[in-house]
């Protein structure tokens, strides 16, 4: 049986030496932790199923590139690696795939140019194209935002999820802006609604604070995978412990 996946997310600030990991609360950055490839290797050894790197560099000045981060990571980490942030073309994606990435994740560029989703999936295959949706609860609907949560688009997240699946996206990385960094748990309603609307896998993100939240994301939210950042970075939950817990609860994990 296909296992439910646990995915640590590493937000990289490439303006800092080595592209240090940043952890934000409600889409505003605050603290720095380790180097991306060192943290990725630690998670690989602890049983992470995949690694996601997000380039969240605000400044135009960069001391390192995502290509370098991926190259360094791939020498020692033998699980899939997804890269998101700032990818706007087939060429940008190509550079990351050549460096060793397995998937790329796009949000802003997809909303501004939906044809890019089609182009990327035709070129690299659906399985390599993740569309990230950052959604905010607007009472009876969910609105997509772009530019790392800085701009709202008026686009309905559920309709958009269906659209990107049609365009050839292989997965949806769904972040609840309301829950991100709060540790109050994943937005189960949002996750379930998106998961039921599309026939591609959905990764739930934003709000993980304890082990039970992951269980809920799979059982109630119908997520295929769950992603978290700070929880793992600061050692509050170990991935190996989390998986043991999920297994006890009858969830199929690796």
């Amino acid at each position, binding site marked *: *049986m*296909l296992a439910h996946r646990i995915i640590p997310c590493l937000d990289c600030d490439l303006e800092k030496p080595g592209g240090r990991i940043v952890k934000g609360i409600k889409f505003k950055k605050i603290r720095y932790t380790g180097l991306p490839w060192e943290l990725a290797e630690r998670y690989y050894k602890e049983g992470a199923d995949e690694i996601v790197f997000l380039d969240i560099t605000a400044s135009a000045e960069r001391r390192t590139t995502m290509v370098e981060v991926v190259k360094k990571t791939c020498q020692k980490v*033998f699980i899939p690696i997804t890269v998101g942030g700032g990818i706007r073309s087939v060429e940008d994606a190509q550079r990351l795939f050549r460096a060793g990435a397995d998937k790329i994740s796009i949000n802003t560029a997809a909303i501004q140019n939906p044809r890019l989703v089609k182009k990327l999936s035709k070129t690299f295959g659906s399985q390599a194209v993740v569309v990230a949706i950052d959604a905010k609860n607007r009472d009876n609907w969910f609105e997509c935002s772009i530019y790392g949560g800085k701009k709202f688009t008026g686009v309905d997240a559920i309709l958009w999820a269906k659209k990107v699946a049609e365009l050839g996206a292989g997965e949806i990385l769904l972040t609840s802006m309301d829950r991100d960094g709060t540790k109050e748990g994943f937005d189960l309603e949002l996750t379930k609604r998106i998961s039921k609307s599309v026939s591609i896998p959905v990764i739930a993100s934003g709000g993980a604070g304890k082990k039970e939240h992951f269980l809920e994301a799979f059982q109630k939210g119908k997520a295929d995978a769950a992603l978290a950042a700070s929880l793992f970075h600061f050692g509050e939950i170990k991935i190996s412990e989390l998986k043991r817990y999920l297994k006890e609860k009858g969830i199929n994990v690796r």
Partner: protein
Amino acid sequence: MITIIDYGMGNLKSIENAFRYLGVETKITDNPSEIEKSKKLVFPGVGNFGKAIENLKKKKIDLAIKKAIEKGIPFLGICLGFQLLFEKSEEAPKIKGLSIFQGKVSRLKKAKIPQIGWNQLKIQKKSKILKGLKGGSFVYFMHSFYPKPLDKKIIITKTNYGIDFCSSIESKNIFGVQFHPEKSGKVGLKILKNFVEI
């Protein structure tokens, strides 16, 4: 020395990294005569079946692969590189595959497509590349299609995803895996090590 066939379909870096990690030298090439003369061949690939055959023909690698296989060179097809060994695929119905094996490549059904993630190996019979592995081991899949070999005796593992499909084969010097050993952690590295030690 492992020769990795480059025909412009997907990520070769990870496969190279995995062998390097195991302490094995690799060479990436698109040269037909180098392919024919290699000691061990890895045929990777992600992307479209039709486009892959087109690229192989353009580079005249299709014949080199067939000759290498006939010579008995140990050969490992991964993902699309596994599917291409069959006669045809639902992904590109008009295109003829390498036809090393009889059978066609079908689209997954009855589940979310593509299958992305870790799934389990149900071992069907002993194989050199499965040495030291337990049934139920998890490996990483990223695919929408899977091969259906006509000769069921070559199937070494099956995996369940809506249906039980053939996730790997062994036939003489030829091995094929639908999953990505280079992305399957320790289990995947063990499979690659087994291939190196053949």
